[in-house]
């Protein structure tokens, strides 16, 4: 993926996260390189969302280290992680429900804007110009995600599939270098899933943003991912290219020949 002498974008080193007696993440390590689409899969409760929460420092792992471009981000606040260039979407939509689509996306621009409360209150000169400029950027994202008809609606009123898109848009508005996607197509029908897959591909190819994709839809993961890590009960049981992971006996046994075996058959036909 990248030269061996460049530092990876994100390095997760031997992290362990415990909630009381439950070990949600057990000694997990992985790296994500520039522009790479890395995927984490595993059954429910495997610890995938917890990994995202440790990267954004919502949870603090008890052991291990997380480095961004070589520097540790352990112990910094979630908003500082965001400012460094890490954006994410949530498994259970966490939009700002009472705000419009435009305002949700503009909130994603927060870290790219500077106007203070006083400048904003007076709404002259630079503050106004900055608001308008960022509004234009947000309109581009609205175009890209094809959500024009919902622009001025409070997001709570949008259908589920569109809420998922707005969440993606809000993360994109941050202009991140790494995007964490937590089950972006969960609960979507085939058409919506295909749209989302197209957006993800465009984000990787045209915007060059690295991503970590957590998803249960194996077809999607196998199609899109450069590398895959498989988790089971907080343990890392396999890592490699889609082909390597699919033929890994540890993975097949973990999935007990269910989903994964099905996918192996499908792709080998």
């Amino acid at each position, binding site marked *: 993926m990248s030269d061996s002498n460049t530092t990876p974008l994100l390095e997760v080193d031997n992290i362990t996260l415990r909630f009381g007696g439950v070990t949600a993440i057990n000694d997990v390590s992985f790296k994500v390189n520039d522009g790479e689409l890395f995927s984490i899969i595993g059954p429910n409760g495997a610890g995938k969302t917890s990994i995202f929460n440790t990267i*954004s420092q*919502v949870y603090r792992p008890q052991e291990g280290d997380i480095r961004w471009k070589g520097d540790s981000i352990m112990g910094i*606040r*979630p*908003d500082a*992680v*965001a*400012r460094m260039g890490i*954006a*994410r979407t*949530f498994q259970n939509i*966490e*939009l*700002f*429900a*009472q*705000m419009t689509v435009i*305002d949700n996306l*503009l*909130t*994603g621009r*927060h*870290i790219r*804007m500077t*106007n*203070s*409360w006083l*400048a*904003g*209150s*007076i*709404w002259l000169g630079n*503050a*106004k110009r*900055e*608001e*308008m400029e960022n*509004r*234009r950027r947000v*309109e581009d994202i609205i175009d890209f995600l094809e959500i*024009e008809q919902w*622009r001025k609606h409070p997001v709570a009123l949008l259908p589920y599939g569109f809420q998922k898109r707005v969440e993606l848009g*809000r993360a994109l508005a*941050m202009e991140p270098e790494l995007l964490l996607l937590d089950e972006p197509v969960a609960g979507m029908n085939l058409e919506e899933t295909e749209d989302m897959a197209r957006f993800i591909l465009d984000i990787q190819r045209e915007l060059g943003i690295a991503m970590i994709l957590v998803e249960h839809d194996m077809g999607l993961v196998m199609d899109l991912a450069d590398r895959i890590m498989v988790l089971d009960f907080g343990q890392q049981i396999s890592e490699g290219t889609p082909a390597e992971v699919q033929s890994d006996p540890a993975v097949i046994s973990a999935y007990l020949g269910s989903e994964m075996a099905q996918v192996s058959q499908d792709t080998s036909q």
Partner: protein
Amino acid sequence: MYRRPLLRTQYEQDAAIFPTWFQKVALGLVILFFVLATLGAPGIEAVPKKFLGNTWIDPVSNMMPLLIAALGFNILVGVAGQVSLGHAFFMGTGAYTAVTLGGGGDGGIKACVPWHDELGLLEEAGQCGLGLPMWIWLPLAGIVAAIIGLLVAPAAVKVRGLYLAIATVGLVFIGLHLGRTFPEFAGDFESGRRWPKLQFRIWKEETPLVDFTEDGQWFGLIHLAEEQKQLFLLMTFVGIFALMSKNLIRSRTGRALQAIRDRDIAAEVMGVPEFKYKRLAFAISSFYAGIGGALFASYLGRVSPVDFSLILSVDFVAILLIGGAGTMAGTVLGTVFVELLPEVVETFTEWLSDQLDGSGPASWLANVLLTSGSGDFGAIATAAAAPGWPMSVHMWNFAIFGVLIVVFMIFEPLGLFGIWLRIRNYWKSWPFSY
């Protein structure tokens, strides 16, 4: 433009406060109506007189500083979602900053000595102050309140929801206690002290540059009475603060506060530092409260610590619940409603008691509703009655608000603003119901 005719490419226009010409014209007409009514244009002044009585300018002027404070309350509670009952305390902070800086004059700060009622020094103590002009005491009233807001915020941002509401109640009681402890500033606990008048001075000169508290020619153009001048001044302040708060809400800071209100963790993950913005919300809302409190006390001319009690804080909660939290229009509607409805009820009762001796339906209604002492069954007691049934106009007002708050909480969380939205949407699609 051609591809998507509904999409405005001019974002300036899109983000304007009143995006349509209809809204601009409507606002213009409302302002014109107020100006003409204040100037006493005969046909137009009849409208507020009908609802608020002949002295309608007084309750309307009195409402203006409360509206400024309500705009600040909306930023903290409606926009940032931090339910506070401490707003009265910050209004008091502003008011007492104003009176300390701008009050008195003759005795200067020397008059701020402990006093004893028995010695008859009450009025003298009420003179304490530096006698500075309004352009100093008014902004500082806001700034000092904001600083106190910043000081208490670190404790306040740690608690949430109901706990925050209860914690901030404490502030109001601390304020009352301070008022009782320092009568050299606050005057007598019950009767209070005098406040600096609404006058523009450059420094401490004898004749003010612009005096809002004397009848007279204004700029050699028009003869205005004291009440008219004060209302114009207060309306101007309201205009400035309404514009600033609207701008705040629609810009970066306002969105950050709404984000924290809707989803605090997601807001942080989007790069909004939660505690910083909660503290900011406290400071800004306290600033508005401080300005509102200073103007409120100056307009009344005489205020005591008990005027900044919990009842005042609860008024603001009623304003947001009835008007609609989080929106400017709701805040304005709520303030007008909460502050003027008691006057309307009172005017109505007075009108009714004038009808008692007449004939026709009005007199019949008066006989049914009113009671002057005991004996008949009227529900409204016109004589200053003891608590209990029949209730005085004053008690009826309390009861009406209690019921309204509950009704709005259950049936229309968006308040009066929500009702307006429904009416508008109905007429937009009229005569089609889809």
